[in-house]
Structure formats: structure tokens, C-alpha cells
């Protein structure tokens, strides 16, 4: 019977770890909110001062949003285009296996290699410098596999009968994809985009040398921009302010919570549409 207890114990430890991490972050984050005279609202809407020792993280949140939007602008069209090609047009051609293999390889590459590649290729070789543009380009290559995998899965889940119905009415392949397949696969695709955002927000290793660490508002494509995750990293490493590090960590965790809920609901909605 000891096996039963061992398994129960292991599960409790796993839950314990999660509760410990989230609890620890939440408690210390709340402590900061209560003690800090400005409170959480100012923290979110005030610009940082003295390298983050004082003030809030408003410009950093703005930089993070710019990074996400810019990255999505690059990777969503390409990712969606690739996934439509793979699931609708490619059929059994040999090129599909090459594409699928490269997507799996891309998904396996560690983020530090993307950081190294991005720094040398985008910043130095293409002279894009250290800033929003080279950072977002590096990230968009990194999240392409996430978007493609979820989009292909969502498109393949669309029943064949919808396509037959449309083709039998004399619709072209593109009409069928544009008007029938994509709309019903949309919730699944959006879930993929939301998951990609989760990965983009959590990235640090690939960003320090491609995106830079300037915490002021990035107001041009080439200006260096510090984002939430890099800010948390620097606050901790440099010992600038552990209270603000906790507050930033909580902001990150809350965003990840919202992302998980959003993607779960989107995936659920897709299954309702099919029944």
C-alpha cells in the first residue's frame, strides 16, 4: 500500500510547489501594494525613476505591448499562411515533410540560441541595432512554431463535410478556406495566438541583447526597450528593488493567468461550434 501514499505524496508536493510559488509572490506583492504610499494604480501608471528603484512600470508595460503587437504582426500572417498551406494545399507532397521537420526543429531550439542569432544577425549584420525591431523579429521566429502547430490543429479539426459542402456549390479552394474553414477554425487559431503571447511575455534570454534595457518609453522602432520580464530580471539581479520585483512578478503572473483562461475558453468554444 505504500505505493498509494507515495503517489498521493508526490501529487501533494507538486501542488505544494505551485501554491508556494504563487503564494509567495502574491503575499509579497500585496505587502508592497499595502505599504507603498502610491498604491497599485500608480505603480501601473507611473513611469519608473532611478532605474526602477522608484516610480511605477507604465513605460515598461507600454514597451511590452509594443513588443507583443510588433511580434504578432510579423508571425501571425506568416504562421497562419504556413498552416493553411500545410493543412489545405500541401497534400502529400514531399515539401510538407521538410516544412514539418523544420517547424519541429524551430520549436526545439533553446531561446539563448535565438538571442545569439538575433544579436548577431538582426542587430549587427542587418544593422537594425539593439531595439524593438530586432527584438520582435527574433521573437517572431521563436513563436512561429506555436502559432503554426495550434492553427494546423484547429484547421484539421474543421469537419471535411464543410469543405465538401462548399466545393460542391462550385466554390474555389480559397473561397472554401476563406469563408468556411477559417471562420470555424478561428477560435482554435486565436487560442494559438494567445498561447504565443504567453511565450513572448515570458522571454528574457533572447531579449537582453536584441531588445536592450532602456526603461523609458520606446518611441521608435529602433529605440531600445525594456520589457516586463527583463525588468524583473534586472530588478532582482541588480538588487535595485525587491519590492518592485515582487509587484512586477505579480503583474506577469496575472497576465499569464488571463492568457490561460482565455485560451481554454477559446478551445472550448471551438468544440461547441463543431457539434
Amino acid at each position, binding site marked *: 500500500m505504500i505505493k498509494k501514499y507515495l503517489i498521493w505524496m508526490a501529487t501533494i508536493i507538486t501542488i505544494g510547489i505551485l501554491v508556494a510559488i504563487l503564494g509567495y509572490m502574491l503575499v509579497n506583492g500585496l505587502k508592497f501594494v499595502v505599504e507603498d504610499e502610491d498604491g497599485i494604480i500608480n505603480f501601473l501608471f507611473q513611469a519608473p525613476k532611478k532605474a526602477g528603484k522608484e516610480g511605477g512600470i507604465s513605460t515598461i508595460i507600454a514597451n511590452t505591448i509594443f513588443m507583443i503587437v510588433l511580434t504578432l504582426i510579423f508571425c501571425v500572417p506568416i504562421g497562419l499562411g504556413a498552416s493553411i498551406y500545410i493543412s489545405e494545399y500541401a*497534400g*502529400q507532397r514531399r515539401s510538407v515533410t521538410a516544412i514539418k521537420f523544420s517547424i519541429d526543429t524551430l520549436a526545439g531550439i533553446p531561446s539563448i540560441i535565438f538571442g545569439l542569432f538575433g544579436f548577431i544577425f538582426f542587430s549587427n549584420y542587418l544593422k537594425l541595432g539593439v531595439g524593438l525591431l530586432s527584438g520582435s523579429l527574433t521573437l517572431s521566429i521563436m513563436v512561429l512554431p506555436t502559432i503554426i502547430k495550434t492553427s494546423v490543429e484547429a484547421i484539421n479539426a474543421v*469537419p471535411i*463535410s*464543410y*469543405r*465538401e*459542402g*462548399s*466545393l*460542391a*456549390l*462550385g*466554390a*474555389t479552394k480559397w*473561397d472554401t478556406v476563406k*469563408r*468556411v474553414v477559417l*471562420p*470555424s477554425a478561428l477560435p482554435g487559431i486565436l487560442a494559438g495566438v494567445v498561447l504565443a503571447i504567453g511565450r513572448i511575455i515570458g522571454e528574457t534570454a533572447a531579449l537582453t541583447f536584441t531588445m536592450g534595457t532602456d526603461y523609458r518609453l520606446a518611441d521608435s522602432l529602433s529605440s531600445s526597450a525594456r520589457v516586463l520580464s527583463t525588468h524583473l530580471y534586472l530588478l532582482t539581479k541588480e538588487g535595485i528593488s525587491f519590492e518592485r520585483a515582487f509587484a512586477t512578478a505579480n503583474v506577469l503572473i496575472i497576465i499569464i493567468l488571463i492568457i490561460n483562461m482565455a485560451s481554454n475558453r477559446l478551445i472550448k468554444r471551438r468544440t461547441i*461550434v*463543431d*457539434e
Partner: protein
Amino acid sequence: MSEAVKFNIRDLTVSYGNFKALHNVNMDIIENKVTALIGPSGCGKSTFLKTLNRMNDLVPNIGIEGRVLYDGKDIYSGYDVITLRKQVGMVFQASNVFPMSIYNNVAYGPRIHGIKSKKRLDHIVEESLKKAALWDEVKDRLNKDALSLSGGQQQRLCLARVMAVEPDVVLMDEPTSALDPVSTVQIEDLIRELKEHYTIVIVTHNMQQAARVSDFTVFFLNGEIVEMGSTEDIFYNPKDKRTEEYITGRFG
């Protein structure tokens, strides 16, 4: 038998890889008549139906030999598949309504063929739903989700969808096999009404249905035509023994 011939099929052979689904089928389909295709499952009747509007093209490594003439033109050489499927509509066994509103389902065909004006679309939708005898039941909830309709209603919606592109021929692949008896009768009445304006080819397992609605019947077995002729001849004095056995339900 001097009526006009809509389809003329000359030694048609269809194979998936090395499996021969149909071998040298020769027949005519008469305009504005209902032709029923019967036979045990796997005899190639559905495959044959899907060659008429080239839906078989979707099947990977399919081999099609022989000629299928539609109004005298061979649809497998140089015939634009888009125009063909516009003229030769199809209703599937499982009603595949789109996950859209009832209105958008019917308007889908006209829209992809370039009709944009709302007024014309409203007119087409109304006409098509009337032809499918569904207008009265749905006219005040056109933008409700089509998936909320009953099985019989959904199948009639598919029919309305086909009507909306003004086809010349309507193919039906076991349209009522998933429906309750009441909806089945409704569909059969519809088929009789549509006969004046459209050529109808229907695949069915249901012998009584074939007898009730069709003018001609073709009996398929193992990819070949055993016997074909007017429905009365086939059902009341079948020439081939195998047809007689199938009709009387001894096998299949």
C-alpha cells in the same frame, strides 16, 4: 425513350490505387427525370454519383478512365470544374450545413459566384427556401444558427443551398438515410416537385423510396451495372436473376 440525354457515360472505369471501384460503366441519364441508383453497400453507386460533379477529385491517387459527357461535353477534359459544380449541385448523406446563420448558408453559393447586392440575395434566399419547402418554417428567424434546425430541416436547407446557385442537375447521396420517416416523406415529395425543372440522380438503400420517386433505376453490383431501365420494369419484371434476388431482399 427519345427524351433529351443529360449525361452520357461511355465505358467509365474508376480505381482507388489498384482497387477497381467501377469498371466500364455505360449509361445515359435522362433530363428532368429522377434516376435512382441502387445496390449493396460498396457496389460503387456513390463513387459513380461523385464522378458526375467531380467530387472524386478530392480523393488522393484516384484513377478515372472513359468519358462522362454532360450536355455533350466531356467534363473530364478541359471542362472548368467551378462551372460544372455550379450546374451539378449535390446534397450529402449527413446534412453538412455551414456553422453560419440560415440566411448565410443559402446566400453562400450566390456570394461566391459574385452576387453582392443585398436585394438580389434576399430574393434568391427566399425563392430557394420556398423551393425546398422550408420558407414558412424559418422566414422569421433567418439569422438564427443553422445548426439549431432539426435533421429534416437541415437537409432541406442543404437542398435550398443548392437551389440558390440555380443548378441544372441535383445529385443526392442517400439524402434521407439519417432522417425520421416524416422528414423522409417531405424530401420525397420535394423530389417529385423538383422533377419538372431539374434532372435528379439519387443513391438510396431504400428500395421503396426508389420505387416511389424514381422514373429510372440502375442496379449496381461490384462496380458494374447489372440491369437498368424504367423503374416499373426493374421492380416488377426484372430480367437478371441477381436483380430479382436483390429486389426481394434475399441478399445485400
